[in-house]
């Protein structure tokens, strides 16, 4: 009779068991840390409960929280604002990232150095980015000094408080995001450009295509996968925007820069509206799940077409 640990070892080493070990371990973590809390949230979203009262005193209140969320103008305004931020930021990031990648792909001298520097923002902690841009936007910051000659010509005090103006503050948040995440779109497009088949482009050139034609008819269609990936990944990330908002404006002035993440955070951690927050996060999850599913679908379809076009 073998000792039990040897028998356990032998049992685990069987192929049908062995291959499931990591799967079970990872799924256990997901269940413990994500699924159970999620189910708990569903339950709490049906309660009437604020954190200033003990949990035991909470009582079921049906769909009241959901009704509150769906009729809350603040929630929808924050959601719309988030889409506005994400749309503006991602559009700018795509255009700038694409142009930079195209320029770097055609550069020979200093190429490595450019790539190194252009990728730096990605590695900087978002909170620090928020802080850095605060320093630049403040009324006695370098931005105002650069603008001072123009502003003084019109008789305006150059010490503009950018972050106190709703629209300027919104654009401050967007520009901070663009500063940081253009590096990611640049990276994606750069790997796209370096994967372009050279023979195809040379063939087009030999056949008399102009640079313009080569770009629109050959390079751009081949770069479509990279563009889809950049759009999907950046949009998903941009909709989560939170850190720069907290550091730059703390949602202000008024509510003009509250993203949806910031809005929910404030409702739960500042106003202690737990059951409201639970219901709102379920609503948000449903909205995002639709988008995520669509995004993953796009990615999967894209990788399938790439595989078909280039072959196994």
């Amino acid at each position: 009779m073998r000792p039990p640990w040897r028998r356990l070892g032998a049992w685990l080493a069987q192929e049908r068991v062995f291959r499931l070990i990591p799967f079970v371990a990872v799924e256990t973590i997901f269940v413990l840390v994500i699924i159970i809390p999620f189910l708990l949230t569903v339950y709490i979203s049906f309660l009437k409960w604020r954190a200033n009262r003990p949990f035991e005193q909470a009582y079921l209140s049906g769909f009241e929280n959901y009704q509150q969320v769906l009729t809350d103008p603040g929630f929808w305004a924050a959601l719309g604002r988030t889409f506005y931020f994400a749309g503006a930021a991602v559009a700018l990031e795509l255009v700038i990232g694409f142009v930079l990648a195209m320029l770097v792909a055609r550069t020979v001298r200093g190429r490595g150095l450019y790539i190194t520097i252009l990728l730096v923002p990605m590695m900087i902690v978002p909170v620090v980015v928020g802080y850095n841009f605060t320093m630049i936007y403040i009324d006695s910051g370098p931005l105002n000094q650069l603008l001072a000659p123009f502003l003084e010509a019109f008789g305006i005090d150059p010490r503009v408080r950018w972050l106190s103006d709703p629209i300027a503050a919104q654009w401050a948040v967007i520009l901070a995001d663009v500063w940081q995440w253009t590096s990611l779109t640049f990276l994606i497009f750069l790997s796209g450009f370096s994967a372009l088949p050279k023979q195809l482009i040379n063939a087009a050139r030999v056949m008399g295509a102009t640079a313009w034609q080569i770009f629109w008819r050959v390079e751009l269609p081949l770069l479509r996968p990279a563009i889809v990936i950049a759009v999907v990944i950046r949009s998903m990330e941009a909709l989560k925007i939170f850190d720069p908002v907290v550091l730059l404006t703390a949602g202000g002035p008024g509510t003009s820069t509250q993203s949806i993440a910031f809005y929910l955070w404030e409702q739960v951690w500042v106003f202690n509206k737990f059951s409201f927050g639970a219901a709102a996060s379920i609503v948000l999850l449903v909205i995002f799940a639709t988008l995520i599913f669509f995004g993953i679908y796009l990615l999967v379809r894209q990788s399938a077409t790439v595989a078909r076009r280039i072959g196994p």
Partner: protein
Amino acid sequence: MTAVLEASRRQTAAAGARNVRRQRLRVAVRHAILIGWTIVILFPIYWMIATSFKEKHEWVAWPPHWLPHDFTIKNYTQIFVFDVAEKGVAREATEQPFNVWGPLADSLLICIVSALVALLLGTFLAYTISRFNVGGKHFRHAILMIRMVPPIVIAIPLLMYYAIMIPLAAETVLGTRLILFDTRVGVSLIYIATTLPFVIWMMLTFIEEVPYTLEHAARMMGAGRIYTLRRVVLPLVASGMVVTFLFVFILNWAEFLLALTLTHPDVVTLPVLLNKFQSASEGRLFGPQAAIGTIITIPVVILGILIQKHLIKGFSFGTIRK
């Protein structure tokens, strides 16, 4: 074909000097744009480092000082202060000592431990996904979904779970006090869960490059499963594991929302510490904040530059094929 090539070559020669000049202009414009963007990127970082060496009256001086006039390392000595005894002494708001050692240790511990655990589990899972197709065809995409869920949606449930449900369950089932809220274990757990998708995706690209025949040969010659994994597969993906570890470490290092919401007041990570001095009531401590920001940024940027080449590969998401 040769005729066409010949024709185009003749054409180029005819265009001659004009083309060369135009080419040079094009290169110059290209470099000008790239250098412009480089300045845009480097300026905020430079400004932070410059501020971290400025005296208090220079932080928001008008016109701003592009170089610190009174160069000082006071901001650094202030955050690395050791004298706990002096803490009780009332000081001016901008002179308050705030220790960066605790948060630094918390951040390092949480990030390293959770990155290691995620790396081990994720590599193992990526291996079985790649070799045995565990979880089915769409499992890897399902995993990616978890990463795309906004953290605020996870944070609200986790707060209630950590702060209420686990203590309640532990009390009734085990009869002991078990608290995850505001503990390093609690934060590490959620970091492991949120970074696992990245580990699995990155390790999949590395593991799929290891030829299956190699393992097969080892197995045929009688090597055990664990032995094959350890002596054949692991050495081949070791560099990939280092890259993945550093990448996940950087992700955790930068994480703010979950750390902010799941800890207070004991565990403080560096981003949370930076945010603490944002409150208007204390007066914005721009200098020490800049010093903290510099300390958070520099090591990560160096790590990032080290793994940059691999990141380019990891982020291609299948657009580059061998």
